[in-house]
């Protein structure tokens, strides 16, 4: 399946044994809210190792990339920051009540079938209430267990800076309507990549303490009775140990801090048609996240500092959708979840051990005709908290509405207009509220007004230009009560405060096309561009009033091109960002230069007589060895390479089991 990867190969794939029951992706131009997506084939063409690498190609997205395979990578959609993007893994939210910033570098693309980014909200109204509670939603779909035959896939990738990445995937049908699969992956890299010395701008230094080792195991089981009755169970475990190289500090090359992560979750999802026109969706999840941080050279009396955090979360959701007529449907969703944070290390005093109880209800109405759609929705969020020591944040309750319309006003001309509004409530995280000496339990939630107006054009035809689509969306985000850190007492002790107001205006443009040159040659191209102005409008008297928010470039964009010829695929990708500032004070010393990162890859797939298939892959990243930073003093790797081989085997005998 991985070799389907080449952008065009998917169409000419002739191996029925590995056809996936992949979820059909929505037609992005017909939706009332902006949607961007990559399927497996497109993902394979992007030289991306993790989800973080792939989402850099979406317009309106900035990935705060601290460099290297183990470096933190968080998403900021339309400059609202990582806390405003919900991440769904197979339809269920991946929560981080502690910091609220999910490291997308931890999600390998190895078993990801598709990635979708919904600006404002998902287009399906039958979703857990939590899916509607964020300013944007990044939805990841892993390979599903449902298939008709057993398959075994072995992969091995290797590359620069000690990168080794074997993985294994085994899918098999069980009796009756049951099937299962297991997926395991290991990654390691020493991460000692060279960068230009900051002290003299000439000699080459090597990044130190940038190593990472991680493994991931996933087990899936599915019961697929038919389209109207399906249940899925997933168990997921991820374990990583990494160095935290930190920002480069001039004249001081000490770096020894470590971070170990252990994440486990199990989730269950059941989807059933009720009578004719109703549909029920039940989700349940349990998750645990353990974070161990070590500074082995800390100047306290112990000579080291440890933080050992344990986050436990339980989650249940019931959603129901009723189709009242061909054009009118409505849904309700009720979610309840509990997050609890503990700390177990000898350096903790009076840790409050907060527990948060969240209760979300969502009502959505949808009117949909062929050329017109209108959605209205109301979300209620209720949060209360308990602490063992100290004061808990007070209970919060908020109603936040959302509206969206889209239509095709010019008859058969495939041009659609869309308009949406959404109000967002972002509760402070545990770190915001309770972090020792920093947290502030008086924090108010952050609110955002999101407006979007867009136009789309799409044409699919039998001509050589078989696919073409364009989208353009203008947006305005108004943020109030923005939660930001301000210094208090000394530079090591900051406190969280609600003092910010931000106004973010922008334009996201994208185009995608597929062109058939000849029977054997095909081209696919995508381009995206974002223009934005993200301003601090907190205090008209302040020096930084109407100054660009930190790390918000005015221009950014991406380009990808893939060419397929028989069993070969070539791809070429560019991601680029204009200059930006690392602080709201637009001083030359805070300027971070613009950059462009080019990458190229070639893939060859070979089919053998024994129902096996092999794919060979070679990638070159940062082709021009551009020395750049996304975050100031976190240098990005220069030119680097990856090669890989994939072998896929089909098991005939297993197929007998599921013949009915």
């Amino acid at each position, binding site marked *: 399946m991985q070799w389907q990867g080449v952008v065009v190969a998917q169409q000419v794939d002739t191996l029925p044994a590995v056809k996936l029951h992949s979820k059909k992706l929505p037609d992005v131009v017909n939706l009332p809210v902006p949607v961007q997506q990559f399927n497996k084939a497109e993902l394979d063409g992007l030289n991306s190792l993790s989800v973080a690498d792939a989402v850099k190609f979406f317009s309106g997205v900035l990935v705060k990339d601290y460099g290297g395979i183990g470096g933190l990578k968080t998403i900021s959609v339309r400059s609202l920051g990582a806390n405003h993007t919900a991440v769904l893994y197979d339809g269920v939210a991946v929560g981080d009540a502690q910091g609220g910033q999910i490291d997308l570098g931890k999600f390998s693309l190895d078993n990801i079938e598709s990635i979708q980014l919904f600006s404002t909200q998902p287009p399906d109204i039958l979703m857990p209430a939590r899916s509607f509670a964020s300013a944007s939603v990044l939805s990841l779909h892993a390979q599903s267990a449902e298939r008709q035959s057993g398959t075994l896939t072995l992969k091995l990738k290797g590359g620069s800076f000690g990168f080794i990445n074997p993985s294994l995937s085994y899918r098999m049908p069980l009796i009756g309507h049951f099937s299962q699969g297991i997926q395991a992956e290991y990654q390691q890299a020493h991460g000692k990549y060279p960068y230009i010395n900051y002290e*003299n701008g000439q000699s080459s230094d090597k990044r130190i303490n940038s190593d990472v080792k991680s493994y991931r195991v996933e087990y899936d089981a599915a019961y697929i009775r038919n389209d109207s009755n399906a249940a899925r169970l997933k168990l997921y475990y991820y374990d990583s140990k990494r160095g935290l190289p930190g920002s480069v*500090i*001039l*004249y001081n090359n000490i770096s020894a801090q470590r971070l170990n992560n252990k994440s486990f979750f199990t989730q269950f999802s059941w989807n059933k048609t009720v009578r004719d026109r109703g549909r029920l969706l039940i989700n349940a999840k349990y998750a645990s996240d353990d974070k161990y941080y070590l500074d082995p050279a800390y100047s306290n009396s112990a000579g080291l*500092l440890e933080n050992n955090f344990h986050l436990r979360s339980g989650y249940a959701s019931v959603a129901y959708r009723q189709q009242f007529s061909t054009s009118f449907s409505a849904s309700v969703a009720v979610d309840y979840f509990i997050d609890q944070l503990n700390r177990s290390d000898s350096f*903790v005093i009076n840790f409050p051990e907060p527990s948060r109880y969240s209760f979300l209800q969502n009502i959505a109405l949808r009117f949909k005709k062929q050329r017109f759609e209108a959605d209205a929705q109301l979300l209620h969020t209720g949060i209360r908290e308990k602490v063992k020591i100290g004061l808990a944040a007070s209970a919060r309750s908020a109603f936040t509405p959302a509206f969206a319309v889209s239509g095709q006003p010019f008859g058969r001309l495939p041009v659609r207009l869309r308009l949406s509004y959404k109000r967002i409530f972002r509760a402070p995280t545990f770190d915001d509220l309770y972090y020792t000496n920093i947290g502030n339990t008086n924090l108010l939630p952050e609110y955002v007004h999101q407006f979007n107006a867009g136009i789309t054009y799409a044409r699919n035809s039998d001509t050589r230009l078989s696919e073409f689509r364009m989208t353009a969306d203008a947006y305005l985000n108004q943020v109030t009560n923005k939660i930001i850190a301000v*210094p208090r007492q000394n530079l090591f002790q900051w406190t969280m405060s609600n003092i910010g107001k931000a106004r973010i205006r922008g334009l996201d443009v994208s185009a995608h096309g597929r062109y058939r040159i000849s029977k054997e040659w095909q081209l696919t191209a995508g381009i995206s561009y974002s223009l934005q102005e993200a301003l601090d409008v907190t205090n008209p008297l*302040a020096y930084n009033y109407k100054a660009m928010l930190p790390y918000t470039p005015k221009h950014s964009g991406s380009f990808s091109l893939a060419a397929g010829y028989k069993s070969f695929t070539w791809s070429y990708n560019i991601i680029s960002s204009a200059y930006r500032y690392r602080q709201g004070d637009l001083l030359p010393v805070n300027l971070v230069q613009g950059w462009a990162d080019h990458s190229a890859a070639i893939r060859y797939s070979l089919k053998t007589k024994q129902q096996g298939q092999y794919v060979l892959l070679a990638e070159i990243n940062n082709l021009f060895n551009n020395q750049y930073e996304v975050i100031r003093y976190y240098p990005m790797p220069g030119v680097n390479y990856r090669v890989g081989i994939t072998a896929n085997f089909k098991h005939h005998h297993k197929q007998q089991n599921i013949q009915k």
Partner: protein
Amino acid sequence: MKRSFFAILLTGLVALNACKKDDNVVIPAPVLSPATGIYVLCEGGFGGNNATLAYRNVASGVVAADFYRQQNPTQTGGLGDLANDAIIYGSKLYIVMNGSGNVTVLNASTGVLLGKVSFINGSGNKSPRFALGARGKVYVSSFDNTISIIDTTSLSITGSINVGANPEGIATYGNYLYVANSGGLNPVFDSTVSVVDLNSNLEIKKITVGLNPQKIEVNSVGDVYVSGYGNAFGTPAVPPFISVISAATNTLKTNLGAAYAYDHIRIHNDTAYLYNNYGGGDCKVINTLNNSVVRNSFITDGTVIQTSYGINIDEQNGDVYITDAINFSSPGEVTCFNRNGVKKFSFSVSPGIIPNKVLFAR
């Protein structure tokens, strides 16, 4: 440009003249000539590698915002990360680089780099904090619970004194060195001052003061004033404090109490300026000979300082320089007041941020 170069040259000559015996001078010349230049140290942001040293030519009023790089063009990286303190001792200017882990030594007249004393120690940064010149040596407190002794000629560390947890400010009177042990990196803060005998370079006792002590200043009669943060985040919160130690007996003399709850102090001619370096702009003036309040508000002409982060006094004329850290990210400003709290002039140190110290070249 030419004019400022000339001025620097002149400054250099004057300074060289003033201190012929260089660093072995135990007591600086009692008669001070007027300042010809004003150095302003800007701390820079945590991890920002943007510490700067600004220089204002007194005659022309011209400010060289990044004087260090200007005078040391080969040092393209600049000073480095987190300039926590600076002193002029003898003919040299010592800059304590907390993040970069060194003491950067300049010619105090020209700003030319003479050398760096490394505080990187095997696998760690000792994290140097404050410096003090005494007995021909420079004493530097470091977060690794030591005072390092720097030889001012060889510019190397020739000795180390063990003190309490995470020492900050240091002061000297008679044969003693007084060190504020903050313990700021421990879960429970320290609340002691180490007394070090300068003849043996050994800590001879610890005196209990308020919680999380930071700064130490001494008046003419040997009263050692210690200010500290307390713990604003404690349950219950502990306010800032001023404690007074008698150098004659090396015992605690008094805690000044709630009306003197300030975390920073600067003493000049027995007058103490008390301020909070994260809590607004104004400061309280007291007479340390009897602890009476001279003025509750130092500034008398309505000038507004947003965040007074450092106070330094020109010992020649008693002018008071208050550095304003603004919001800790915007360019810093320095305002000069006469001793009556009336503004004389101010200047920006842009792009320098978080100015914390003013020094005078003569």
